[in-house]
Structure formats: C-alpha cells, structure tokens
C-alpha cells in the first residue's frame, strides 16, 4: 500500500530530496565535534567493537556456549543449569554472593549471540548483551572476526525492581556500575580477543571444556 504522507514532509527526515547537499554538509559539520562527553557516547547505550584474529565460525561457536562466560567475563563464575531449559545460574563475583541468571539466544545465520541475564532472579531477564560476529574478510578485507557488542540502559539499571531477591547485606546494584560499563566491557572484550587469538594461533581447542 502506498504511503499516504510524503516522507519528505515528516519532521526530522533529511533526504537528498528535501535537504540540499550544501545544507547536508553544514548539518554534518554541526554534528561533528572534536570530542564527545563520555555520558553522551555511553549514557544510554554502550557499544563496543573489536577485531579478533580467529575465524568467525569459531568465535560464534565459542560465544554461543554459556560456559565461555566463565572465561572471558571479569566476574561470572561457577555456571550450573537450572530446572528451566537453557537457563543457567552462576555467581557474579563483582556483587560478592550475587547470583546471575543467563539464557543464551544465538542465531547461526546472522551469527548473533544475545545473553539474556538478570541479577538475583531468573524470571525477568532484562539485562541483555547483544553481540554479533562479522566475518572480517567482508568488512576489513582480512581473515578473522569483528565482534560488535551493545548494551542498552534498561530502566531497571536505575532502580532495582526486585530488592527482596538480593543477597543479605549487599549494597551494590548492577546499575550503579553503568558509568563503568564501557571500561568493564572494554576489559572483557580484550579478554575475549586475547583468549581466542591465543587458542587459534596455538591450535588449541576453542572450547577446551568440551570433551572430544
């Protein structure tokens, strides 16, 4: 069905047809700063990207296995299955005795791996880590992988909706760490890169916990 409204008349739509090149250039200049405040870049979304010298299939296979999180994350350890299919519980040692629940949703064709997680309870998995593996051959013209990783600042990061589920005596809420998400995720991305590049270069198994 054809659109009833000319899209060039919709406010804030800039297209070649309604925004001449000179105007677009000026707009681009206005939007291009020398520096950007941290909060402006990482306040609502936290996106990172990294090149990893390891084939995309191997990176995808590794990320799709929940047990990899016990390796490349800073503080998720001791994974165990729960009664619910695909839902795992582990400790997030950054929150001392905090339990974190995780379900991995991966899509082989698109090579997306999403970790649906939550602190303290496993009924509402609202902390979602969106990752995508891209063949570096396509985007950088070299072997290996590019990993994209985004978190969105869900309102629960501001206020813990399940305070009763927290372990006794814990003052910290995961959302208090949001200003450090870029830093923490950068460190973890480097862990991921270092581990996978080491294993690939030395010919070791990518997932050594899986028996052959």
């Amino acid at each position, binding site marked *: 069905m054809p659109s009833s409204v000319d899209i060039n008349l919709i406010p804030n739509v800039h297209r070649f047809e309604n925004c001449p*090149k*000179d*105007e677009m*250039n*000026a*707009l*681009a*200049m*206005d939007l*291009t*700063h*020398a*520096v950007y405040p941290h909060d402006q870049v990482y306040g609502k979304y936290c996106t990172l990207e990294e090149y990893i010298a390891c084939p995309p299939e191997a990176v995808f296979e590794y990320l799709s296995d929940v047990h990899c999180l016990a390796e490349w994350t800073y503080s998720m350890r001791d994974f165990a299955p729960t009664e619910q299919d695909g839902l795992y519980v582990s400790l997030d040692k950054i929150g001392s005795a905090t339990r974190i629940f995780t379900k991995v949703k991966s899509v082989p064709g698109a090579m997306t791996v999403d970790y649906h997680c939550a602190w303290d309870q496993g009924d509402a998995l609202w902390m979602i880590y969106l990752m995508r593996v891209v063949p570096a051959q396509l985007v950088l013209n070299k072997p290996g992988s590019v990993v994209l990783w985004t978190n969105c600042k869900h309102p629960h990061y501001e206020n813990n909706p399940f305070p009763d589920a927290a372990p006794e005596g814990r003052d910290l809420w995961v959302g208090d760490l949001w200003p450090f998400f870029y830093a923490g995720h950068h460190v973890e991305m480097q862990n991921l890169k270092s581990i996978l590049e080491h294993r690939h270069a030395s010919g070791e198994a990518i997932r050594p916990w899986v028996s052959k």
Partner: protein
Amino acid sequence: MTQLSQPPLSLVGTASYLPETVRDNAFFGCTDTKNPMFKGSRTRHHVADGETAVQMIERAARRLGENLDLDFGRDVDVLLTNVSCLDQPFTGCGASVARVLGCKPRWIIDMQNTGCVSFVFMLDLARALIRSGARSALLCNVQNAGGRIFAHPENRARPQSAIPGDGCGVGYVVANDESPVRAIETLSHGEYADDMRVKSEDGEAWWAPRSGPLHIDFTQSRIGKIVSRGNQLVPKIVTKACAEAGISVSDIDVLVTNQPNKTFLRNWREALLMPEEKHVHTFEDHGNLFGAAMPISIEKAALQGTLTNGSTLAIGGFSHAGDYSGAAIVDWRGQSEHVQ
C-alpha cells in the same frame, strides 16, 4: 632554563583596523538565518574599492603606535606582513608599509604562507630575529579577500562567500620581559598543502585572463577530512605549547584562535574543556578574519577586560586546509583596557 629567556621576547600590544563598509547576511542573498552556513556570523566588514593592504596596516599601526607611544623611525627593527589578497603580485607590501610609517627596519619579510595562523609564525620568526640582534618587531596581518573576491556579484551566492570578513590586526614585540612569550610551538603539515586551491569557474589559472572571479575550492570529498584534522590540530598544538610553558590547559585565562566558523570555535573550546567566556573571538561581527583574527581578538580581550595584567593568554590555530598549525603562550602584562 628555556631558550626563551635568552634574550626574552614580549608581546606588548595589538591593534586593529576594520574597513568602513559593513555587510549583513542579506548582501549575500540569504535572508534565511536558519541556513547553518550563515549561522553565527551576522555581519562582516569589506574593504572599499581601491583600499590597499598598505593603508589598512598603516591605520592599525598608527593606533598601536599611539597606544604604546612608538616612534616608528626608531622602534621597528623587524617588519613582518601577511596579506591574504596582495596589493601587487611580485613585490609584497612590506617596503611600502615601511615608507608610509617612516621606519627603516633591518629585516622586512612578506610572509605569503601560514595564513590564519601567521601571527604565531610571526612571533616565532620575530623570536629568531631577536636572537640575531633585533630589538623589536611589528607584525602585520591583513585579510582583504572579502571585499576583493567574495563580494563579487558572481561569488556572493556561494555559501563560502559570507564567511570571510576583512580587517587588519597588528602586534608589537620587543626584546625584554615586560609581557613575556613563554612558549611558541609551530608545525608544518606538507601532506595537507594541496587540499585548498584558489580556482575560477572557467578553469583558468589565477594569473591567466579569465571571464569570472576567483574563489576558494575545498572539494566536497575532502571536507570531512579537513574538519576532522582541523578539530585535532588546534587542541593538540595548544596543549603542546602549554606543556612547553610548564602550565596545564586549565591554567589558560584567555584563549584566542583563528575563526574559520562557529563549528571549529565550539569544537576547540570543547576539546580544551574551555568555558565559552574564556575563548575570545569576533566571528559574529567580523566573520573569518584569516590571519588578522588573532591580533584583533587579543585587542578585543584586552579592551573588554577579559585579558588583564597577569592573565595567561593562549594563542592557537591552523591555516588553509591544515598545512600549518601553531600556538603560543603569553604571560600577558601588555596593553589593557586603560589604554582606550
């Protein structure tokens, strides 16, 4: 000890001359103030037909001479000029300036390069010549391409034409520690030298007989790169000059830069974490003054009381499409608002 202490170099004052004719945005056929290309600059001055760079320098220098009680016949060992649109090809205008001011400098140098950042390069050259025995230098910057080139009826409608404004800024430096220049940093970036060209629509060279006026060509494909390098060059070299002077960027009391457009002014200020009131410029009233912007803005800062005795003044900028960048730090104890 820095080399600057032997012998010292002081920037003791600057003065301006602005041509009488003031053009508003309507002159360029643009009454739509929403157009981002026209944002920021309300007016700019244009030189009159027949008004020369030599006359502009003379007028600004006479003001400076009165403010500082200079005897041009005695007090100018070095005369440096930079003029964006030359009065005459081949000759430069330094010798004519010496004639009208009645001075007999040992060195007269007409600098054709370093455009918008030429004031910093002049400070550096004056320092070198003072180390070679000179006692004083008059630095003269003229921007006169607005009236001469961009006011042309065939040029007016170009978005770039409303940006340049004409004016002259002069500065005076002496070999003492009255108002010491603590650091000067200069860099050349030859790799960016060919990204700005003077062109005409008919494709003829500037010296060839032509049917249309000249304009400046920053090709579309290079604009993103030029903006990006401009964003980086200036904060980088100001920071370097601060380090050379042994101060941190937050110690700067007044920042003066070249003023190509509002975006660069904003970006440099943001990158140096500088509050707006410390960054003194005249872009709204004068447009892009090329090399004349720095001495004119220093004068403005002194006259309005932003730059006072004891202020740390940082001067920084880049030229053309990024071929030169430079910055200087001055412990300002020069001419202040009491002069006027």
